[in-house]
């Protein structure tokens, strides 16, 4: 068994999806290789090694997705990987799609589990809002390509050594590679990291306006939590994309998730339904969020949230 895991440089480390996938892939046995795109800093490489990658094939950051896919496809011919695992990041998805088309192999996205049984690779998906689990087998031969959901597996180092690093040759892909990044801009979130926070306070369209997120941030501050949001309010420009929880945003599993003015669309639920305790405030008693909430308050966020803030302040003093 030879498994490749796609990794990108993130905040001076390797992407969390890569570390999760490596941890899982250790259980398959055999060779474990990380394809790492970006600076290739020592902490990132060491992290990949510590999670089980014996070898890292490195590519620099200013290469187009088309060129990365072409480089990987060429390496596939000589290295013959059985399985290639990507995460849900933008570049992960760009490269996975292109590699799949280039190799003529399917890619199975949104996987919540990957299993290997002899030659057969299977992935599990949760569909219909997480109510149905489907297991699909690859039948086209190696490599099986999959995109896995965040937090599908825990990331645990096994104390592996620093990996052997070699640079992957990047072929010229002509017009397909004709994209340039002119500039990068940060719109960073304040407060604790959303994906790691023990408490998440999220706001949806029911808040009524961008300025109401101040109230959500204040509440989050009082309980040591991070601020999250639905896609509806991210698309409306109320808060940056980094706040988004759900299918196309972050997956969170805090001990407490407090949903304020959120309907509970299935695409939001898949990103937070595994929180230990879910509390929801919504004025509509029929809102689907109450179907997963341990405590639901049918009420107006503009009354309940300010009162809760006052109560927490009184409680703390």
């Amino acid at each position, binding site marked *: 068994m030879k498994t490749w895991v796609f990794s990108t440089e993130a905040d001076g480390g390797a992407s969390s999806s890569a570390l999760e996938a490596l941890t899982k892939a250790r259980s398959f046995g055999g060779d474990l290789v990380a394809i790492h795109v970006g600076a290739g800093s020592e902490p990132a490489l060491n992290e990949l090694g510590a999670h089980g990658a014996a070898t890292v094939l490195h590519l620099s950051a200013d290469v187009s997705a*088309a060129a990365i896919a072409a480089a990987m496809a060429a390496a596939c011919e000589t290295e013959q990987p059985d399985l290639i695992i990507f995460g849900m990041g933008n570049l992960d998805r760009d490269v996975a799609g292109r590699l799949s088309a280039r190799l003529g192999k399917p890619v*199975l996205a949104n996987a919540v589990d990957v299993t290997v049984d002899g030659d057969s690779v299977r992935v599990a998906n949760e569909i219909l809002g997480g109510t149905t*689990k489907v*297991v699909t087998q690859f039948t086209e031969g190696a490599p099986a390509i999959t995109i896995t959901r965040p937090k599908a597996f825990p990331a645990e180092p096994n104390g592996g050594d620093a990996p052997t690093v070699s640079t992957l040759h990047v072929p010229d892909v002509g017009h397909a590679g004709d994209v340039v990044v002119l500039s990068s801009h940060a719109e960073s979130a304040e407060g604790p990291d959303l994906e790691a926070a023990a408490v998440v306070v999220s706001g949806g369209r029911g808040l009524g306006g961008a300025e109401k997120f101040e109230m959500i941030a204040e509440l989050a501050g009082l*309980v040591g939590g991070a601020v999250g949001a639905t896609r509806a309010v991210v698309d409306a420009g109320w808060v940056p994309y980094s706040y988004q929880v759900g299918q196309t945003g972050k997956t969170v599993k805090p001990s407490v998730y407090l949903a304020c003015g959120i309907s509970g669309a299935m695409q939001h639920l898949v990103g937070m339904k595994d929180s230990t*305790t879910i*509390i929801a405030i919504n004025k509509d008693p029929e809102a689907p969020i109450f179907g997963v909430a341990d405590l639901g*308050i049918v009420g107006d966020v503009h009354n309940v949230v300010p009162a809760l803030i006052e109560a927490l302040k009184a409680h703390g003093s």
Partner: protein
Amino acid sequence: MKIVVCVKQIPDPASPYKLDPENHFVVRPEDQVLDDTDRYGVEVALQLADEFGDEASVTLLSMSPGGSQQGIRQALAMGADGAILVEDAGLRGADALTTSRVLAAAAKRAAADLVITGTESTDGYTGVVPQQVAELMGVPSLTFARKVEHVDGKVRIERQTQAGYDVVEGSLPAVLSVTSGVVEPRYPTFKGIMAAKSKPVETLTAAELEVTPSSGQSIVSVESVPAREAGEVIEDDGEGHLKILAKLEEVKVV
């Protein structure tokens, strides 16, 4: 300037989806609706075409094995010039790669300068079709756009990233995938709806596009996942916040 917008027709999300017990595909009614996600691509195309002037055209492209046209007419009513519908019973349950082969072949045949897609569809959400289409057409992909501009014959976008956004530029022909925050899609006018009825819809089969449907995957099992149990739901009588406080104390957050 020929703009092709990929629009998916899907079962109305307002009624719950069901799986066919035999082949496990989502049950699709005769008439499917326009995926809301693709209204954004249509709007971007119409705005770009306005900028380009008379020479520009907007053609919709939809692969819909059952031959549904309802969703296409919804998008035509927004103002697109015409549509290409790939209908072929052999494409039922097609995977993303087969779908992409069909869309790429049809877009090439239409001599598209720019192919616009959504970021992920509402019913399939594989989110890889735009990139596969770009690879099969041998063109650059500008993905996850939250803003689109046309500058000197090139397309410049703000690409949504975890940290914020990147400004990315690519040359044509290209594939562009847009998010649902990119523009505010227009609502069809009465005139638009009437005009849509007589706009040309060209139908094609997979064979005409020289695509052989194939699937490199097979479903092994389907089972239901136990639902999370709902807890207590109470009406706020002015004391709702105290219930929350008590819950936060119970789980030792405060």
